């Protein structure tokens, strides 16, 4: 089963990379952009076949390694 995780920076955390991407988009003529926030995306292929158990394991991975909860939020995408 493949489970996806999206990690995003929390609202109050400065994202200098997102800011520079925004500026570059601006310079390229994409004038409508309000803000860009950069995040991370993971695909985890697990042997677990039970949907809930797999999600619980991935949640543990997020808390212990994939995200730093001081600055980041994680979102687990439901496996299809």
């Amino acid at each position, binding site marked *: 089963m493949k489970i996806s995780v999206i990690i995003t920076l929390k609202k109050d*955390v*400065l994202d*200098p*990379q997102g800011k*520079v991407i925004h500026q570059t988009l601006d310079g390229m003529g994409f004038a409508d952009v309000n803000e860009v926030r950069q995040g991370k995306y993971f695909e985890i292929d697990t042997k677990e076949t039970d949907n809930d158990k797999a999600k619980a394991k991935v949640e543990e991975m997020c808390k212990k*390694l*994939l995200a*730093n909860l*001081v*600055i980041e939020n994680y979102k687990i995408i439901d496996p299809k």
Partner: protein
Amino acid sequence: MKSSVITFPGSNCDRDMDVALRKFGFKNKMVWHADAELPKSDLVVLPGGFSYGDYLRCGSMASKSRIMQSVINFANSGGMVMGICNGFQILVETGLVPGVLLRNKYLEFICKNVFVKINDKKNKYFKNVDNEVLEFHIAHNEGNYFCTNDQLKEIEDNNQIAINYCDENGKIEDKFNPNGSIKNIAGIFNKEKNVLGMMPHPERMIHASLSGEDGSLFFKNLINNLK
């Protein structure tokens, strides 16, 4: 006095730290990250570098390596643990010191000498240092110290800020902040002040003809405080 320097894959200041510790009288051992046991030590140092290529987040992989459980136990039982640069990043990822180190505010890798003001001398790292201001070297891409407001309050209430970026006279202002760190924080302690994480490299300032002597001051003082 016995010290141990942990080498992770991608550490690159481990040998410099070894030279510095030996120069000022430590009997130092290099310890590989995959080892389980720490040798008997009065001081453990997590050196600078790019452990695990800075993958995921700087220090995150190294913080889970085998030796780190022993280092964490050592720190929790009052042992002296110092993390420099990438070592500081590893320390925050273990949770031994609060906060995180983000990408530098202006996105550039910073490599230069800076001045830091010692904020607290009631600890074994800075006790009896005569100077209020030290000149150290920094070289990092992710040294922008950040923590939540609650953490900052706790850090300040417990006087856990070790050093702040400043000018040569000890003036702490935004213009002397190289990387965007909250409150110009360059280094912090855990609550008990046996664990120190800092971005500057004292091991690069141990010879007058090469760089400067403020690292010498730091190490001479440290070994005396541990005796």
